[in-house]
């Protein structure tokens, strides 16, 4: 963008400045408007699952409801507990929101990239990790036992979930050979824009694992433990009201949005889809944006469905799920990703190997024979691992016997 501005005759420093301001504004506005739409979308769709209408009074189909909510929260009293650590209490929502907004810097909107970092994946993970600081600050600074419990839970949860989440990305990085989100999206553009990683066995398992871990990261049901309203009221947010509470809320939904965007980018091909390359130019870019948003909101709909259905896990069950279920599967997935890369790309990735063993029969990336072998091999590894771990976790699903014996009922048995 800066280049285009320089060509228009702006001084180079000015064009960089203007471009940055435009980008920052777009990121901030895009994130917040996305979050507003998200709250409406969640409430409305969850209402239909529960046989009710949901917000439908403010604006067409209730679309302006988030704005009225925003006005409501902004005009509410902003109360700080007397014994709270005032500075920490004030800073906690800022840290939370700041961490979330940072991650929006690298998220591609279709094929439009605000910033193309060469380690964007790492950057996203790092900003996600900052959340735990905000939570702990809120939990500790509020001087409230429920808030403290919530903050502790949040930190414990994030620490356990970062590991499977980060490691679930490794297969994607291996398959692409880069940590840049742009490269990852480009790598999924084979087969007329449908070469998404989710269609390979490695990507499918990786997608499931990453998305599950991300639910915990975004504090969504069944992992909404840090803010479990039925247990610890609102967790670390208990002592927040007015705009500060709204900022927490904003940050939560924006990070959920970010999670959906990242998942769509990593596994569902980002803005790739049939017709994007054919159109090209601005039209292609818009189409890619539409594809990208559709994928992301479909992912968010899955989150909503989960929220409307299942209860939440207990905090210890969550830990054991992360360490005993997700982590082994993630490790196996990295193994099969390595096989995948070795079979498909060893000539490209490791020239040394080609030197030693000679080039594979054909160096073509879409060699169907090699692709078939890779798919079968990774499918076997992954399916075997999933089956094994399902058996090992010993779920013992048989129901309780409940006798309905009429004779028993004649008195105390």
């Amino acid at each position, binding site marked *: 963008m800066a280049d285009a501005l320089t060509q228009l005759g702006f001084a180079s420093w000015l064009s960089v400045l203007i471009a940055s301001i435009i980008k920052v504004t777009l990121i901030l506005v895009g994130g917040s408007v996305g979050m507003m739409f998200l709250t409406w979308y969640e409430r409305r769709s969850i209402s239909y699952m529960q046989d009710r209408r949901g917000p439908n009074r403010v604006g067409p189909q209730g679309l302006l409801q988030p704005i009225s909510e925003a006005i409501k929260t902004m005009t509410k009293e902003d109360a700080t507990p007397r014994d709270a650590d005032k500075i920490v209490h004030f800073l906690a929502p800022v840290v939370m929101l700041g961490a979330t907004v940072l991650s929006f810097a690298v998220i591609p909107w279709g094929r439009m990239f605000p910033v193309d970092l060469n380690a964007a994946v790492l950057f996203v993970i790092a900003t996600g990790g900052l959340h735990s600081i905000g939570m702990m600050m809120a939990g500790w600074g509020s001087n409230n036992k429920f808030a403290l419990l919530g903050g502790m839970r949040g930190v414990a949860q994030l620490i356990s979930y970062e590991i499977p989440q980060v490691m679930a990305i490794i297969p994607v990085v291996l398959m692409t050979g880069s940590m840049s989100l742009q490269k990852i999206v480009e790598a999924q553009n084979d087969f007329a824009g449908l070469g998404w990683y989710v269609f390979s066995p490695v990507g499918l398992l990786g997608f499931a694992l990453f998305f599950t871990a991300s639910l915990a990261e975004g504090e969504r049901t069944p992992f909404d433990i840090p803010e479990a309203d039925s247990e610890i009221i609102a967790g670390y947010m208990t002592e927040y009201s007015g705009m500060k509470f709204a900022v927490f809320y904003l940050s939560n939904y924006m990070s959920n949005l970010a999670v959906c965007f990242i998942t769509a980018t990593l596994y569902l091909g980002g803005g790739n889809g049939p017709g994007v390359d054919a159109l090209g130019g601005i039209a292609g870019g818009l189409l890619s944006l539409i594809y990208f948003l559709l994928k992301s909101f479909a992912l968010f709909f899955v989150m909503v469905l989960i929220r409307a259905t*299942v209860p939440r896990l207990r905090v210890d069950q969550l830990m054991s799920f992360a360490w005993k279920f997700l982590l082994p599967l993630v490790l196996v997935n990295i193994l099969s990703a390595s096989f995948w890369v070795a079979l498909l790309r060893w000539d490209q990735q490791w020239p040394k190997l080609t030197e030693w063993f000679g080039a594979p029969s054909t160096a073509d990336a879409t060699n169907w024979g090699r692709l078939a072998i890779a798919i079968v091999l990774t499918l076997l590894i992954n399916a075997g691992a999933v089956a094994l771990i399902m058996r090992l976790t010993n779920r013992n*699903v048989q129901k309780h016997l409940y006798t309905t014996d009429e004779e*028993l009922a004649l008195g105390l048995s």
Partner: protein
Amino acid sequence: MLKTEELQINIGPQHPSTHGVFRMLVTVDGETLVDLKPVFGYLHRNHEQLGEVNTYLQNMPFTDRLDYFNSMVNNHAYARTVETLAGVEVPERAQYIRVIMDELSRILNHATAMGFMLGDMGAWQTALLWGMREREKILDMFEYVSGARMMCNYCRFGGVVRDIDDWFITELKKLMQGLPHYFDDFEGLLLNSEILLARARNIGVLPKELALAYSVTGPVLRGSGVAYDIRKAEPYAVYDRFKFKVPVGTVGDVYDRFLVRIAEMRESYKILEQALEQLPDATGGFINPKVKQQSLKAPAGEAYARVESPKGELGFYVVSDGTGSAYRYKVRAPSFINLSALADMCKGYTIADVVVILGSIDIVMGEVDR
């Protein structure tokens, strides 16, 4: 080993999942519960004292406010006590009407109670609102017969205040057509959910002996494996004419109580079907015309009568000195007595479990505090 400090937390009286103004003084070590002390009385409103001042009929609407989910059952139990005391005959049609109302109450109570319990568990309102949907339909029926949705004040000594008509019966049949779908939907939603199993199985175990020692009744007792149901043990009204089973759990955990309640809804449905079939025509009357409702005087003596309320054994104990109001009036509220087992059920589990266990007991604070 790390040295940890125990933390005292007040869950309640203002808390999303204490089902009213109820306080649990909880001592936790991290997330694990060390001690729990239930504190109640916030809703105390002199119910039993009022019962000794009011005339017998005046007290009828007060019983609505005990377990405000099942005012029909409360009315039934109170009316039965005074009828026993005063020796009042009840026409058969009135008995059937009371049974129909009781079983409808049981369905609405269990539907919402299980919804609330799943809500406590974190299933965001879906199960609850599905239950509420059925409850609304039943409350509409109650409103039609009694004029009020929740505070029905429907029973009178020797019968009920208003007869049910053909419209009610056709509407009830329509409602009942939808009920099995609701039961199936509700079971299909979560019964075999991995997370529900993890959260409910072997949680809040109440062994059979302990349950009997606490004189726990209702689905909580049956979940612990004791097949004790007053409808079978001491058939009142016309319950001996219906074929139904008493579901019993095996372990006594939250999941068993959950299963027992779902099975009980299905059994209630069967009772409703049979009651509608056997319902006598209106010739026998729906109320004993000889009873002077306003100025009922019971002969000196005492009476205790009980019914199987959806929450357990609901009994009223009334002592009369021959005047128009009770000399002594006492309510045996199932929620209160079931609640006394809470601390023993919760010890050793986590905070997250405590709210679920409390939800699985199914308490109504209006009845606990009186």
